[in-house]
């Protein structure tokens, strides 16, 4: 099985997943437009490698190992989409298929340079999904721009890629580990108490993708989606 095949499957599970529920074989088959039987076979192989948890009749979901790989690929995919769209001026409806081919060939180093070159974008161009955070140990993009020339292998990479707080569910908690955004926004957020390492609790979100209510240092804040999408946390495991 090629690494491209593995990556494509993991990415599909990543996109199809909702709230950690298992995804049925049929759904995956429909996504790839292939027979369910070959999907089952593939899932078994992935399970053996520890990327997914698979149980017949219920379906499959990503393990944290699989999630990491999938997130990385999703990040490369969406960054490439931005590049194709913003720089090469390729039409919005065409960037997806192009990026699908290129994502597997893009090295991590090139991905990081691409991110800096594009000025660390928030969302992908075609369906406005969040571009996941990288695994560099910085707490802001400013730091990345200033310090990336230093050998960061020495300072180590993140064990766990932080997730955007907009992806946390009601009642979930996390520690702020990375904020994407320009200086003024960063200043404002840290003045309100959202400094790296701070614990935040998601209380609720307003309907129709509205703002998030969070608790920070004993105060209750409302953060619009544009804010929540740039604040990344290390989610706390129960």
């Amino acid at each position, binding site marked *: 099985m090629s690494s491209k095949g593995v990556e494509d499957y993991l990415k599909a599970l990543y996109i199809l997943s909702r709230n950690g529920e298992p995804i049925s074989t049929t759904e995956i088959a429909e996504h790839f437009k292939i027979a369910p039987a070959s999907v089952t076979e593939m899932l078994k192989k992935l399970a053996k490698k520890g990327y997914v948890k698979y149980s017949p009749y219920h379906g499959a979901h990503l393990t944290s190992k699989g999630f990491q790989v999938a997130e990385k690929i999703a990040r490369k995919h969406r960054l490439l989409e931005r590049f194709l769209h913003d720089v090469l001026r390729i039409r919005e409806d065409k960037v997806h298929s192009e990026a699908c081919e290129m994502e597997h060939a893009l090295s991590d180093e090139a991905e990081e340079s691409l991110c800096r070159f594009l000025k660390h974008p928030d969302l992908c161009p075609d369906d406005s999904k969040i571009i996941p955070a990288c695994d560099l*140990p*910085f*707490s*802001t993009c*400013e*730091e990345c721009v*200033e*310090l990336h020339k*230093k050998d960061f292998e020495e*300072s180590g990479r993140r064990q766990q890629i932080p997730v955007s707080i907009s992806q946390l569910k009601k009642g979930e908690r996390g520690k702020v580990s990375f904020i994407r955004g320009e200086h*003024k*926004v*960063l*200043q*404002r*957020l*840290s*003045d*309100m*108490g959202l*400094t*790296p*390492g*701070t614990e935040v609790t998601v209380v*609720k979100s*307003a*309907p*129709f*993708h*509205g*703002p998030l*209510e969070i608790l*920070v*240092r*004993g*105060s*209750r*804040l*409302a*953060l*619009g*989606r*544009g*804010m929540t999408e740039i604040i990344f946390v290390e989610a706390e495991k129960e």
Partner: protein
Amino acid sequence: VTQKKLIIALAGNANVGKSVIFNYLTGLHQHIGNWPGKTVERAEGTLSFKGYTIDIVDLPGIYSLSTYSLEELVSRKYIAVERPDLVINVVDASVLERNLFFTLQLMELETPMIVALNQVDIAKRKGIEIDTEKLEQLLGVPVVQTVATKGIGISQLLEMAIKAIEKGQTTRREVRYGEEVEERIAKITETLQGIQFYYPRRYVAIKLLEGDEEIAREIAKLAPQAVNTAKELTGEIENLHGHACSTVITSERYEVAGRVARQAQKLVPPLKPTAEERLHNLTTHRIAGYLIMISSLLLIFYAIFTFGNYTSDLLSNLLNRLEPLSTNLFGTGIVGSLVWGGVAEGLIAGVTVALPYIIPFYIVLYFLEDSGYLSRIAFLMDNAMHKIGLHGKAFIPMMLGYGCNVPACLGCRIMETKRERTLAAFVTTLVPCAARTVIILGLVGRFIGIQWALVLYVFDLFVIFALGRLAFRVLPGEPSALIMEMSDYRRPDLKTVLKETWFRLAEFIKIAFPLIIVGSLVIKAADVFGLLNPVANLLSPVTVAWLGLPVITGITLIFGVLRKELSLILLAALLAPTGLQALTPVQMVVFTLVAMFYIPCVATISALVRELGGKKALFITLFEIAFAIILGGVALRVLTLFT
């Protein structure tokens, strides 16, 4: 005996009860203006105490003393340059850590200060008990517990303030950072020796490390060496910590605030959620929240316009009885009709809109604001406002607009960027103010049916949305996202509510009244000299041919520029003896639509000029004239199809 003069400034986060304390201290002896050359409000008041005349300056509610907003910069400069005798830092006891973050920054400014630990009652209900003595000891600054809404602790606060000023302050602790940062602060401070600057040296050193642009610019003129050294040292800290230097310093400052808070407070969270908590959950609930919002807003509008209609009639009847008096004094000639028809009627119309509609509306609105409900509405409406390129907070000036567009336009200052202020002011001018509501209810509501008046209201919302979206597309730039604190619900303070209402009313009187009177006079003069009919005839291609209205509506629409509701009153008079019934239902709807949108009134235009500048104000005005004419004509043709 000449009394000694003192200046005390109030500083603190937003929603901590700072203005309640301000009102307690100064009573009616206060005035609101702007900081020189800035669109930031400055409130000042005086009181006498123990042989002192004390000037109290209420600084804007802010979360930090960085340069994020104009408010922060103004406050910081005021404290450092004007050097008030004392700063009273109002702190919300129920959110101690976040509030202390600001307290620490005041301490770094090395200003004489005391802390008013306010809202201890709310804190207690949340299970937060604060040891005042311990806090005093940790900060080295006197602390007084207060419950401003009940007047508790205010006189102790004042006594403590005087004591602190008389004694001079020596005990204030220094905010200490980590070893790596402290070493470098010391190095920069050395390079600053012998320099005269309004900020303390240590403060300058810290701010240079944080990359504060304002201070770097000023210091570059005095000691360029210091700026270069700071740049180098900033790089060192970044290499050591692997984080941006400003992040390192903010984090460490928050760490200190957290440590002080933890040592000074005891937490015993209540088992059951408090009443405030439950109210918060209910009013921000994904379904119940919206139902409560819509029904309470409808109820408020209904109550105010029923009340307003009644009192407005009463008032105008009363005031119109003065006409014979005017006739006696000035006669019925040109002078007489100018005095009565121009000046007096202008005044009467202003009064009959301001008193019955605007005042109760603002009282209710500021009641909601002070209780904390408006921030919940902003939370619920954030998403909808995003569709027109604004965030939830913009809903607040829009609601003000239902009373009067003038204070609403000024209220758009709460938006963070220039682009958002422009957008918000534009949509605000489309909101039907009290005067326009008078037309909608008095013409369509009265003669066609109240449900049709409601349809027009809903249609107005649709127009706001559509034109807002259009403006969002036209104005370049990214919309900024909402960052807003939702502080706990609290009992509103009547004095604060009345004061806010009074200041909004003062804005209305100051801007709108003179324009209304002068305008009335000009148009009355035109009337007296027989210039109105020619103008109406000149407008007839638009009014008659395109809009299908009687010729005389041209005159009334000119009057409407002054005050919208006047166009209806005048129309009724000009259509005598049949009155408004002379119009067909379609004409009524078309006339109302045009009157709603065709131009912001003269007072609103002047508010727009103040806030956005002449060019944008002119553009908005011209756009709305064109839009209303097109809309009216289209409405006529569509409606005729169905009747």
